[in-house]
Protein backbone atom coordinates (compact mmCIF):
# COMPACT_ATOMS: atom_id res chain seq x y z
CA UNK A 1 0.00 0.00 0.00
CA UNK A 2 1.45 3.38 -1.01
CA UNK A 3 1.75 6.35 1.36
CA UNK A 4 -1.05 8.21 -0.41
CA UNK A 5 -3.56 5.31 -0.18
CA UNK A 6 -2.60 4.60 3.44
CA UNK A 7 -3.02 8.29 4.37
CA UNK A 8 -6.44 8.62 2.69
CA UNK A 9 -7.83 5.41 4.27
CA UNK A 10 -6.53 6.43 7.67
CA UNK A 11 -7.89 10.00 7.35
CA UNK A 12 -11.40 8.71 6.56
CA UNK A 13 -11.29 6.00 9.23
CA UNK A 14 -10.02 8.44 11.84
CA UNK A 15 -12.70 10.96 10.93
CA UNK A 16 -15.39 8.33 11.56
CA UNK A 17 -13.67 7.25 14.78
CA UNK A 18 -13.55 10.85 16.03
CA UNK A 19 -17.20 11.41 15.07
CA UNK A 20 -18.48 8.26 16.81
CA UNK A 21 -16.15 8.76 19.74
CA UNK A 22 -17.46 12.26 20.40
CA UNK A 23 -21.15 11.34 19.89
CA UNK A 24 -20.94 8.47 22.37
CA UNK A 25 -18.40 9.98 24.73
CA UNK A 26 -16.09 6.96 24.49
CA UNK A 27 -13.33 8.72 22.57
CA UNK A 28 -11.73 7.95 19.22
CA UNK A 29 -8.90 5.67 20.43
CA UNK A 30 -11.21 2.71 20.74
CA UNK A 31 -11.73 2.52 16.99
CA UNK A 32 -8.33 3.81 15.85
CA UNK A 33 -6.31 0.97 17.41
CA UNK A 34 -8.36 -1.91 15.91
CA UNK A 35 -8.45 -0.03 12.57
CA UNK A 36 -4.67 0.26 12.51
CA UNK A 37 -3.78 -3.18 13.85
CA UNK A 38 -6.52 -5.41 12.39
CA UNK A 39 -7.24 -3.72 9.06
CA UNK A 40 -4.00 -1.95 8.15
CA UNK A 41 -1.73 -4.48 9.94
CA UNK A 42 0.26 -1.73 11.65
CA UNK A 43 2.41 -2.73 14.65
CA UNK A 44 0.43 -2.15 17.85
CA UNK A 45 3.10 0.14 19.35
CA UNK A 46 2.77 2.55 16.41
CA UNK A 47 -1.03 2.31 16.77
CA UNK A 48 -0.90 3.18 20.48
CA UNK A 49 1.42 6.14 19.82
CA UNK A 50 -0.82 7.61 17.11
CA UNK A 51 -3.96 7.10 19.18
CA UNK A 52 -2.41 8.77 22.20
CA UNK A 53 -1.61 11.88 20.14
CA UNK A 54 -5.20 12.07 18.87
CA UNK A 55 -6.48 11.74 22.45
CA UNK A 56 -4.45 14.81 23.47
CA UNK A 57 -5.80 16.82 20.53
CA UNK A 58 -9.49 16.08 21.14
CA UNK A 59 -9.41 16.42 24.91
CA UNK A 60 -7.46 19.69 24.85
CA UNK A 61 -9.73 21.12 22.16
CA UNK A 62 -12.95 20.37 24.02
CA UNK A 63 -11.54 21.11 27.49
CA UNK A 64 -10.96 24.68 26.33
CA UNK A 65 -14.71 25.09 25.75
CA UNK A 66 -15.79 23.46 29.03
CA UNK A 67 -13.31 25.36 31.18
CA UNK A 68 -14.76 28.59 29.82
CA UNK A 69 -18.27 27.56 30.88
CA UNK A 70 -17.07 27.05 34.47
CA UNK A 71 -18.37 23.48 34.80
CA UNK A 72 -14.94 21.85 35.14
CA UNK A 73 -13.78 21.48 38.75
CA UNK A 74 -10.15 22.47 38.21
CA UNK A 75 -9.04 21.74 41.80
CA UNK A 76 -10.53 18.27 41.71
CA UNK A 77 -8.95 17.69 38.29
CA UNK A 78 -5.54 18.89 39.46
CA UNK A 79 -5.64 16.70 42.57
CA UNK A 80 -6.66 13.57 40.63
CA UNK A 81 -4.05 14.29 37.95
CA UNK A 82 -1.45 13.18 40.51
CA UNK A 83 -3.07 9.75 40.35
CA UNK A 84 -3.60 9.61 36.58
CA UNK A 85 -0.14 10.90 35.59
CA UNK A 86 1.59 8.52 38.03
CA UNK A 87 -0.54 5.72 36.55
CA UNK A 88 0.21 6.80 32.97
CA UNK A 89 3.95 6.84 33.68
CA UNK A 90 3.68 3.29 35.07
CA UNK A 91 1.55 2.19 32.11
CA UNK A 92 4.05 3.53 29.57
CA UNK A 93 6.87 1.66 31.33
CA UNK A 94 4.78 -1.53 31.43
CA UNK A 95 4.08 -1.22 27.68
CA UNK A 96 7.76 -1.96 27.02
CA UNK A 97 7.69 -5.28 28.89
CA UNK A 98 4.13 -6.54 28.32
CA UNK A 99 3.98 -8.73 25.15
CA UNK A 100 1.95 -7.16 22.34
CA UNK A 101 -0.63 -9.96 22.23
CA UNK A 102 -1.36 -9.43 25.94
CA UNK A 103 -1.85 -5.70 25.26
CA UNK A 104 -4.37 -6.65 22.55
CA UNK A 105 -6.31 -8.89 24.98
CA UNK A 106 -6.40 -6.23 27.74
CA UNK A 107 -7.51 -3.72 25.11
CA UNK A 108 -10.44 -5.95 24.10
CA UNK A 109 -11.54 -6.44 27.71
CA UNK A 110 -11.42 -2.73 28.58
CA UNK A 111 -13.27 -1.98 25.34
CA UNK A 112 -16.16 -4.31 26.26
CA UNK A 113 -16.31 -2.82 29.74
CA UNK A 114 -16.49 0.71 28.33
CA UNK A 115 -19.27 -0.24 25.90
CA UNK A 116 -21.35 -1.74 28.74
CA UNK A 117 -20.72 1.36 30.85
CA UNK A 118 -21.92 3.66 28.07
CA UNK A 119 -25.26 1.79 27.85
CA UNK A 120 -25.95 1.69 31.57
CA UNK A 121 -28.67 3.96 32.92
CA UNK A 122 -27.13 6.07 35.59
CA UNK A 123 -28.82 7.50 38.64
CA UNK A 124 -27.40 10.74 39.93
CA UNK A 125 -26.99 11.37 43.65
CA UNK A 126 -25.52 14.67 44.70
CA UNK A 127 -23.67 14.63 48.02
CA UNK A 128 -23.71 17.70 50.22
CA UNK A 129 -21.92 16.37 53.28
CA UNK A 130 -18.35 17.53 53.75
CA UNK A 131 -15.67 14.95 54.62
CA UNK A 132 -12.31 15.66 56.25
CA UNK A 133 -10.43 15.32 52.96
CA UNK A 134 -12.95 17.19 50.83
CA UNK A 135 -12.70 20.12 53.25
CA UNK A 136 -8.91 20.04 53.44
CA UNK A 137 -8.57 19.84 49.66
CA UNK A 138 -11.48 22.23 49.04
CA UNK A 139 -13.05 19.95 46.46
CA UNK A 140 -16.65 21.11 46.84
CA UNK A 141 -17.97 23.21 44.01
CA UNK A 142 -20.95 24.37 42.06
CA UNK A 143 -22.00 24.33 38.43
CA UNK A 144 -24.48 26.36 36.43
CA UNK A 145 -27.83 24.90 35.34
CA UNK A 146 -30.16 27.46 33.71
CA UNK A 147 -28.49 30.46 35.39
CA UNK A 148 -28.66 28.77 38.78
CA UNK A 149 -25.68 27.37 40.64
CA UNK A 150 -26.02 23.85 42.00
CA UNK A 151 -23.72 23.06 44.94
CA UNK A 152 -22.15 19.64 45.36
CA UNK A 153 -19.55 17.91 47.48
CA UNK A 154 -17.22 14.96 46.95
CA UNK A 155 -17.10 11.73 48.91
CA UNK A 156 -14.79 8.65 49.13
CA UNK A 157 -11.77 10.53 47.83
CA UNK A 158 -9.25 7.76 48.59
CA UNK A 159 -11.28 5.19 46.65
CA UNK A 160 -11.64 7.54 43.69
CA UNK A 161 -7.93 8.32 43.78
CA UNK A 162 -6.92 4.65 43.51
CA UNK A 163 -9.39 4.08 40.67
CA UNK A 164 -7.71 7.03 38.92
CA UNK A 165 -4.29 5.41 39.27
CA UNK A 166 -5.73 2.35 37.50
CA UNK A 167 -7.33 4.56 34.80
CA UNK A 168 -3.91 6.18 34.26
CA UNK A 169 -2.15 2.81 33.91
CA UNK A 170 -4.69 1.67 31.30
CA UNK A 171 -4.37 4.97 29.44
CA UNK A 172 -0.57 4.68 29.34
CA UNK A 173 -0.56 1.00 28.41
CA UNK A 174 -3.24 1.10 25.69
CA UNK A 175 -2.99 4.66 24.38
CA UNK A 176 -6.63 5.52 25.05
CA UNK A 177 -8.15 8.28 27.17
CA UNK A 178 -9.84 5.68 29.44
CA UNK A 179 -12.66 8.15 29.97
CA UNK A 180 -15.01 5.30 31.01
CA UNK A 181 -12.78 4.37 33.95
CA UNK A 182 -12.38 8.00 34.98
CA UNK A 183 -16.13 8.42 34.99
CA UNK A 184 -16.51 5.25 37.15
CA UNK A 185 -14.12 6.81 39.65
CA UNK A 186 -15.91 10.15 39.65
CA UNK A 187 -19.67 9.40 39.37
CA UNK A 188 -19.58 5.88 40.78
CA UNK A 189 -17.17 6.22 43.67
CA UNK A 190 -16.89 9.92 44.44
CA UNK A 191 -20.54 10.80 43.63
CA UNK A 192 -19.75 13.83 41.52
CA UNK A 193 -22.60 15.17 39.29
CA UNK A 194 -22.38 13.86 35.68
CA UNK A 195 -21.88 17.22 34.06
CA UNK A 196 -18.93 17.95 36.34
CA UNK A 197 -17.45 14.44 36.11
CA UNK A 198 -17.51 14.25 32.32
CA UNK A 199 -15.97 17.69 31.80
CA UNK A 200 -13.40 17.25 34.57
CA UNK A 201 -12.48 13.79 33.24
CA UNK A 202 -12.01 15.31 29.80
CA UNK A 203 -9.85 18.05 31.30
CA UNK A 204 -7.58 15.41 32.87
CA UNK A 205 -7.33 13.13 29.82
CA UNK A 206 -4.93 15.47 27.96
CA UNK A 207 -2.39 15.67 30.79
CA UNK A 208 -2.67 11.95 31.48
CA UNK A 209 -2.01 11.13 27.82
CA UNK A 210 0.88 13.64 27.70
CA UNK A 211 2.55 11.93 30.69
CA UNK A 212 2.85 8.68 28.74
CA UNK A 213 3.28 10.33 25.31
CA UNK A 214 6.64 11.79 26.42
CA UNK A 215 7.88 8.21 26.93
CA UNK A 216 6.39 6.95 23.65
CA UNK A 217 7.86 9.87 21.74
CA UNK A 218 11.39 9.06 22.87
CA UNK A 219 10.99 5.36 22.18
CA UNK A 220 9.97 6.04 18.58
CA UNK A 221 6.38 4.78 19.00
CA UNK A 222 4.96 8.00 17.54
CA UNK A 223 5.59 7.81 13.79
CA UNK A 224 4.75 10.99 11.84
CA UNK A 225 3.49 9.05 8.81
CA UNK A 226 0.83 7.32 10.95
CA UNK A 227 0.12 10.01 13.55
CA UNK A 228 -0.48 12.75 10.91
CA UNK A 229 -3.66 11.32 9.31
CA UNK A 230 -4.91 9.96 12.65
CA UNK A 231 -4.67 13.23 14.57
CA UNK A 232 -6.15 15.35 11.75
CA UNK A 233 -8.98 12.87 11.10
CA UNK A 234 -9.94 12.30 14.73
CA UNK A 235 -9.93 16.01 15.57
CA UNK A 236 -12.10 16.94 12.56
CA UNK A 237 -14.45 14.05 13.39
CA UNK A 238 -14.73 15.16 17.00
CA UNK A 239 -15.48 18.75 15.94
CA UNK A 240 -18.27 17.50 13.63
CA UNK A 241 -19.57 15.31 16.45
CA UNK A 242 -19.79 18.21 18.87
CA UNK A 243 -21.69 20.28 16.26
CA UNK A 244 -24.21 17.46 15.81
CA UNK A 245 -24.58 17.02 19.58
CA UNK A 246 -25.66 20.64 19.98
CA UNK A 247 -28.52 20.13 17.53
CA UNK A 248 -29.81 16.68 18.48
CA UNK A 249 -30.49 15.14 21.89
CA UNK A 250 -28.33 12.12 22.68
CA UNK A 251 -29.91 9.21 20.86
CA UNK A 252 -30.26 5.78 22.37
CA UNK A 253 -29.98 3.88 19.08
CA UNK A 254 -26.62 5.47 18.30
CA UNK A 255 -25.24 4.17 21.58
CA UNK A 256 -26.47 0.69 20.68
CA UNK A 257 -24.89 0.83 17.22
CA UNK A 258 -21.62 1.92 18.77
CA UNK A 259 -21.81 -0.74 21.48
CA UNK A 260 -22.28 -3.47 18.85
CA UNK A 261 -19.40 -2.15 16.69
CA UNK A 262 -17.19 -1.94 19.74
CA UNK A 263 -18.07 -5.47 20.89
CA UNK A 264 -17.24 -6.92 17.46
CA UNK A 265 -13.92 -5.04 17.46
CA UNK A 266 -13.04 -6.15 20.98
CA UNK A 267 -13.80 -9.81 20.23
CA UNK A 268 -11.53 -9.48 17.17
CA UNK A 269 -8.76 -7.94 19.26
CA UNK A 270 -9.01 -10.66 21.92
CA UNK A 271 -9.16 -13.46 19.30
CA UNK A 272 -6.13 -12.15 17.40
CA UNK A 273 -4.34 -11.57 20.68
CA UNK A 274 -4.88 -15.16 21.82
CA UNK A 275 -3.80 -16.50 18.42
CA UNK A 276 -0.69 -14.33 18.64
CA UNK A 277 -1.41 -12.43 15.39
CA UNK A 278 -0.88 -9.04 17.04
Amino acid sequence: MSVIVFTVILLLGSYLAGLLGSLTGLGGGFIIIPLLTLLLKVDIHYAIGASLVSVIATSSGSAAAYVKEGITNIRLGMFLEIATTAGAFTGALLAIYVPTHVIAIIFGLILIFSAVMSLRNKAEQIVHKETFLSKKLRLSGNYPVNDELIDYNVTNIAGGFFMMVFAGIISGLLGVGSGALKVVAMDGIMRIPFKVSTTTSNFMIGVTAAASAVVYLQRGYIHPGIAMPVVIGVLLGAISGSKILVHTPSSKWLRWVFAIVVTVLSVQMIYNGIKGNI
Partner: protein
Amino acid sequence: MESKETYNSPVPFGGDQQKGISGSVKDKDIQVIIGWILRGGVAISMILVFIGGIFFVYRHGYSIPDYRTFKGVPVFIHDFGGIINGVITFKGQAIIQLGIILLIATPIIRVAFSAVGFLLEKDYLYTFITLIVLLIILASMISGYAG
Protein backbone atom coordinates in the same frame (compact mmCIF):
# COMPACT_ATOMS: atom_id res chain seq x y z
CA MET B 1 -29.79 33.44 46.72
CA GLU B 2 -26.82 31.17 47.06
CA SER B 3 -25.49 32.10 43.65
CA LYS B 4 -25.71 35.83 44.34
CA GLU B 5 -23.65 35.43 47.48
CA THR B 6 -21.03 33.42 45.62
CA TYR B 7 -20.60 35.92 42.82
CA ASN B 8 -20.42 38.97 45.03
CA SER B 9 -18.13 37.67 47.73
CA PRO B 10 -14.63 39.16 47.69
CA VAL B 11 -11.72 36.82 47.07
CA PRO B 12 -10.86 35.32 50.44
CA PHE B 13 -7.18 34.71 50.98
CA GLY B 14 -7.72 32.07 53.63
CA GLY B 15 -9.89 30.22 51.20
CA ASP B 16 -12.09 28.44 53.75
CA GLN B 17 -15.16 30.44 52.85
CA GLN B 18 -14.48 30.11 49.16
CA LYS B 19 -17.43 28.36 47.59
CA GLY B 20 -16.07 26.77 44.47
CA ILE B 21 -13.88 27.14 41.48
CA SER B 22 -16.30 29.46 39.69
CA GLY B 23 -16.57 31.60 42.80
CA SER B 24 -13.66 34.01 42.65
CA VAL B 25 -12.61 36.56 40.10
CA LYS B 26 -9.01 35.37 39.85
CA ASP B 27 -10.09 31.79 39.24
CA LYS B 28 -12.12 33.03 36.28
CA ASP B 29 -9.09 34.83 34.81
CA ILE B 30 -6.97 31.72 35.11
CA GLN B 31 -9.70 29.70 33.45
CA VAL B 32 -9.72 32.13 30.53
CA ILE B 33 -5.93 31.86 30.17
CA ILE B 34 -6.07 28.05 30.38
CA GLY B 35 -8.74 28.04 27.68
CA TRP B 36 -6.53 30.15 25.42
CA ILE B 37 -3.45 27.97 25.96
CA LEU B 38 -5.37 24.81 25.13
CA ARG B 39 -7.04 26.23 22.04
CA GLY B 40 -3.92 28.00 20.77
CA GLY B 41 -1.69 24.97 21.32
CA VAL B 42 -4.03 22.63 19.46
CA ALA B 43 -4.52 25.11 16.58
CA ILE B 44 -0.82 25.81 16.00
CA SER B 45 0.19 22.16 16.25
CA MET B 46 -2.56 21.05 13.87
CA ILE B 47 -1.44 23.64 11.31
CA LEU B 48 2.13 22.29 11.55
CA VAL B 49 0.95 18.67 11.22
CA PHE B 50 -1.16 19.63 8.20
CA ILE B 51 1.65 21.53 6.41
CA GLY B 52 4.12 18.74 7.18
CA GLY B 53 1.59 16.21 5.92
CA ILE B 54 1.32 17.98 2.57
CA PHE B 55 5.12 17.99 2.13
CA PHE B 56 5.34 14.34 3.20
CA VAL B 57 2.59 13.03 0.92
CA TYR B 58 3.78 15.19 -2.00
CA ARG B 59 7.32 13.81 -1.77
CA HIS B 60 6.69 10.22 -0.67
CA GLY B 61 3.15 9.60 -1.92
CA TYR B 62 4.09 6.62 -4.06
CA SER B 63 6.64 4.93 -1.82
CA ILE B 64 5.54 1.84 0.10
CA PRO B 65 5.92 2.24 3.87
CA ASP B 66 6.31 -0.80 6.12
CA TYR B 67 4.66 -0.28 9.48
CA ARG B 68 4.07 -4.01 10.15
CA THR B 69 7.18 -4.45 12.21
CA PHE B 70 8.28 -1.92 14.77
CA LYS B 71 11.44 -0.08 13.71
CA GLY B 72 11.04 3.21 15.58
CA VAL B 73 11.07 6.50 13.64
CA PRO B 74 13.45 7.63 10.84
CA VAL B 75 16.92 8.56 12.15
CA PHE B 76 16.71 12.24 11.15
CA ILE B 77 13.85 12.85 13.61
CA HIS B 78 15.35 10.88 16.51
CA ASP B 79 16.24 13.96 18.53
CA PHE B 80 15.02 17.53 18.78
CA GLY B 81 18.07 18.97 16.99
CA GLY B 82 17.42 16.66 14.06
CA ILE B 83 13.78 17.69 13.93
CA ILE B 84 14.63 21.41 13.87
CA ASN B 85 17.19 20.75 11.16
CA GLY B 86 14.54 18.89 9.18
CA VAL B 87 12.01 21.70 9.63
CA ILE B 88 14.48 24.26 8.24
CA THR B 89 15.01 22.09 5.17
CA PHE B 90 11.23 21.54 4.76
CA LYS B 91 11.22 17.82 5.52
CA GLY B 92 7.58 16.80 5.90
CA GLN B 93 8.04 14.24 8.68
CA ALA B 94 10.13 16.68 10.74
CA ILE B 95 7.42 19.38 10.49
CA ILE B 96 4.75 16.84 11.51
CA GLN B 97 6.87 15.70 14.45
CA LEU B 98 7.40 19.31 15.61
CA GLY B 99 3.62 19.79 15.55
CA ILE B 100 3.14 16.60 17.58
CA ILE B 101 5.73 17.69 20.17
CA LEU B 102 3.90 21.01 20.51
CA LEU B 103 0.61 19.15 20.90
CA ILE B 104 2.05 16.96 23.68
CA ALA B 105 3.48 20.08 25.33
CA THR B 106 0.10 21.88 25.30
CA PRO B 107 -1.49 20.17 28.35
CA ILE B 108 1.88 20.28 30.16
CA ILE B 109 2.09 24.06 29.61
CA ARG B 110 -1.49 24.25 30.90
CA VAL B 111 -0.42 22.52 34.14
CA ALA B 112 2.54 24.90 34.53
CA PHE B 113 0.21 27.88 34.11
CA SER B 114 -2.18 26.46 36.70
CA ALA B 115 0.73 26.33 39.15
CA VAL B 116 1.41 30.03 38.58
CA GLY B 117 -2.30 30.78 38.92
CA PHE B 118 -2.59 28.97 42.25
CA LEU B 119 0.52 30.74 43.47
CA LEU B 120 -0.95 34.15 42.58
CA GLU B 121 -4.06 33.18 44.51
CA LYS B 122 -1.81 32.28 47.45
CA ASP B 123 -3.27 28.79 47.34
CA TYR B 124 -0.07 27.04 48.41
CA LEU B 125 -1.66 23.61 48.83
CA TYR B 126 -2.71 23.55 45.19
CA THR B 127 0.53 25.10 43.99
CA PHE B 128 2.23 22.13 45.66
CA ILE B 129 -0.22 19.60 44.16
CA THR B 130 0.32 21.07 40.69
CA LEU B 131 4.10 20.94 41.10
CA ILE B 132 3.84 17.23 42.00
CA VAL B 133 2.00 16.61 38.71
CA LEU B 134 4.75 18.48 36.83
CA LEU B 135 7.42 16.44 38.63
CA ILE B 136 5.74 13.16 37.67
CA ILE B 137 5.66 14.25 34.01
CA LEU B 138 9.32 15.28 34.25
CA ALA B 139 10.22 11.88 35.75
CA SER B 140 8.36 10.22 32.89
CA MET B 141 10.33 12.29 30.37
CA ILE B 142 13.67 11.41 31.99
CA SER B 143 12.83 7.71 32.13
CA GLY B 144 12.17 7.81 28.40
CA TYR B 145 15.64 9.20 27.77
CA ALA B 146 17.24 6.63 30.03
CA GLY B 147 15.73 3.70 28.11
